């Protein structure tokens, strides 16, 4: 090894989970006094790699070096003691405690024995806060702070352990532009000859501002590390999406002349959605693409009435409808299949029969309040056969089925309810490759039978091979609607990374806030 030893180095790291190879032979090098950005699509392995570094997971293979010395992080606390602190996307804070109490939780200064010294605690926190130049008060309860300030508390807590390596997982996902600037200033103050930052982000625009180098992962594999200054963001995106599109699988049955079944206009929610409009046609598979937090799940939840919409109108088969709950949606024959099957889609402890029939009990299987057992079983058997659900019997408990077959059970439930608009949120999440193909075939079959399908997916490749048209979202807005012919990894990614709230160029491209229409948009990306 030469004289310029790296601060942190990971070599040939591999990690598998049951059924999935999350990381395979990945490298990473963080130099002193550097911000290294780590980018990749959803599922590329960024979070897994960070969890290995911070001791949450243990690597199957590979070696880690801190200042040239080999180390094996055994637990989050151990990693912290070594000087590696991680700030997760989900904060680990106690909202009812104050800033100072959170920073020094478990290490409270004592007034003697069992008694706390609130004064020493606040003084130490005030010192730290001043050193980091953070706009925080030690005695503010954390639950009352903005997300940005809560993040600062996390940072202060991490740095109070004398961190040398600070890992930040999408730190700006919930911040506005001014807050991002403050965060970046803080990061620049932190990095020094002894320290460095690993910065995970989806936001291409900010990598230019903060990152010295960018490491790209794809499908759990190392792609490349580039100097930010010498690389355009376009190049980074093409490194991220990488491989050429598979040509053997294309959307099936794409036609323009279909009748519009569901039309959503100007849908907005208090939390995220801004003026979302789209149309779903009969027998169509409409893909929804976008990065995490773009608002796709929120769109689905607002459409089926699981979340309250502030404004907007929905028409089903041409007629305006009011949908205020998923039960209303089901009356209009709209079914929503949640991305979290286990929490929202299935009763894991119940058998297949109960799961398939639960939503249709009162319409189809009850007489005077009693359940018609035999009819239920007959229907369940019919769907187990027609959807090829692999289960020893319809009386098998749902939790013992594989992910793919669980998904089919949920689909059967909605088909039995005679839904002809099906909203699939991440239909293949947690399902292994072979079973994915079966779900794809099933979706194509359903569309061919005239069912209309909305398919929300974070896997770009999956959207591209399945969707007849693709709606792309970013920051709660629809930023683009592409036909199958127009859609490529690059075009979808372009629309998915538009950030009209931060970039005037992006806003102009979308025709929003046209305060400077003379500005050209092409040169900015």
């Amino acid at each position, binding site marked *: 090894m030469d004289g310029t030893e790296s601060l942190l180095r990971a070599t040939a790291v591999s990690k598998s989970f049951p059924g999935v190879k999350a990381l395979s032979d990945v490298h990473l090098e963080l130099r002193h006094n550097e911000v290294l950005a780590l980018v990749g699509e959803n599922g590329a392995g960024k979070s897994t790699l960070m969890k290995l570094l911070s001791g949450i997971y243990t690597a199957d293979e590979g070696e880690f070096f801190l200042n040239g010395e080999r180390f094996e992080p055994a637990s*989050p*606390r151990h990693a912290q003691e070594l000087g590696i602190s991680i700030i997760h996307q989900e*904060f*680990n*804070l*106690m*909202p*009812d*405690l*104050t*800033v100072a*109490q959170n920073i020094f*939780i*478990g*290490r*409270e200064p*004592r*007034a003697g024995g*069992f*008694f*706390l010294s*609130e*004064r020493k605690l*606040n003084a130490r926190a005030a010192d730290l806060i001043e050193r980091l130049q953070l706009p925080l*008060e*030690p*005695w*503010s*309860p954390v*639950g*009352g702070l903005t997300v940005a300030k809560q993040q600062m508390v996390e940072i202060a807590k991490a740095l109070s352990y004398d961190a040398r390596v600070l890992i930040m997982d999408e730190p700006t996902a919930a911040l506005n532009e001014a807050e991002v600037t403050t965060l970046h200033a803080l990061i620049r103050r932190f990095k020094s000859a002894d320290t460095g930052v690993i910065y995970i982000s989806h936001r291409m625009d900010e990598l230019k501002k903060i990152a010295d180098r960018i490491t790209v992962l794809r499908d759990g594999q190392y792609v490349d590390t580039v100097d930010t200054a010498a690389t355009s963001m376009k190049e980074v995106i093409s490194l991220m999406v990488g491989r050429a599109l598979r040509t053997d699988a294309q959307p099936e049955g794409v036609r323009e002349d279909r009748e519009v079944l569901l039309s959503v206009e100007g849908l907005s929610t208090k939390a995220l959605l801004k003026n979302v409009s789209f149309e779903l046609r009969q027998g169509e598979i409409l893909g929804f693409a976008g990065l995490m937090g773009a608002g796709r799940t929120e769109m689905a939840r607002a459409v089926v009435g699981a979340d309250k919409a502030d404004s907007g109108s929905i028409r089903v088969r041409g007629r305006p409808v009011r949908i205020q709950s998923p039960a209303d949606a089901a009356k209009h024959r709209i079914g929503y299949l949640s991305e979290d099957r286990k929490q929202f889609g299935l009763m894991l402890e119940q058998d297949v029969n109960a799961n398939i029939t639960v939503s249709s009990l009162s319409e189809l299987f009850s007489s005077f309040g009693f359940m018609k057992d035999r009819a239920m079983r007959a229907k369940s058997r019919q769907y187990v056969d027609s959807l090829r659900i692999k289960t020893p019997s319809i009386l098998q408990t749902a939790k013992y089925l594989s992910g793919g077959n669980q998904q089919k059970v949920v689909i059967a439930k909605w088909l039995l309810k005679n839904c002809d608009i099906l909203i699939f949120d991440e239909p293949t999440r947690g399902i292994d490759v072979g079973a994915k193909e079966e779900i794809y075939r099933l979706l194509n079959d359903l569309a061919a039978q005239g069912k209309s399908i909305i398919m929300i997916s974070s896997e770009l490749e999956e959207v591209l091979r399945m969707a007849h048209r693709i709606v792309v979202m970013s920051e709660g807005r629809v930023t683009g609607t592409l036909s199958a012919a127009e859609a490529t990894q690059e075009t979808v990614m372009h629309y998915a990374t538009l950030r009209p709230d931060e970039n005037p160029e992006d806003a102009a491209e979308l025709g929003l806030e046209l305060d400077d229409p003379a500005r050209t948009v092409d040169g900015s990306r």
Partner: protein
Amino acid sequence: MTTPTATTETQPVAGGVSLSLRDRLQQFLAFASLLVIFVVFSIANSNFLTYGNVLAILYSTVVIGTLALGTTFVIITGGIDLSIGTGMALCAVMSGVMIVNLGVPLALGVLGTILFGGLLGLINGFNVAILKIPPFIATLAMMLVAQGLALVLSHSTPIYFNDVPAYSKISRGNLIPDFPNAVIVLTAMAVIAAVLLNKTILGRYTYSIGSNEEATGLSGIDVRKWKIIVYTFAGLFIGLAGVMISARLGSAQPATGMGYELQAIAAVVIGGTSLAGGKGSVVGTMIGALIISVLNNGLQIMSIPQEWQNVILGCVILVAVYADMMRKKQT
């Protein structure tokens, strides 16, 4: 000492004051309700606002108040303790068995009873923290066990302390002239509980666990240990309540106890402690306990039948909790 944020007097006026103001407002609301109820009864019946009756109200708060103090800690961690009522009856019986049947000296018997309560809490804490049995189930089981054991140990008959007249003095004596000792005990316990909750690491981790248990664990705190300590601590209060109720009655009644847990939990909840954990205060709990006593006493004085008192108490709980939820929604 109402909130952890308002403890040090050296704080400049800034930052979190707005939020702690809100917390103070909640306490103020509870206190204001107490005052309103008090004033209404005073106007409605001239027998209500007398020195004797106010003392009677305080006196009748002692048992529920003592139970509620310990339970406040448990509820702030996000747990629940249903075993406090029958646990108290079991402790009263233990006191009778030790002091009357076995002739254990008074002081030793009282101490033993309190420690026995701590043992019940320790078992609850073990079941909840180590065996991971949900607190509702673990303490429901303990509630039944304690109820049964109280009957078994006493052969289903009350144990009278007639031969130990000093025992009743614990509750009914007057160290301060015309002022029952029981009220002094409750006041002292409230002060101790408030100090523990606001000034010690026990209190800090109690809030921390209830606020975000996983984050507390990830911060390197032994959550299991502290949960066991909290349940054990609540158990000590069960033991003390057992002493106080048997001293008041002059006997250990094995069949009583059931129902006290719900009154104590009601006091905690009316006082603004969140059943979801993370929030709560000793002052709030004491106000909650007083609201219950004042209601019971006032309704009795106004000759409203006993049956109706629980109906009204139930409605008060609904209103108090709903008002608290509305307040939180606004912020």
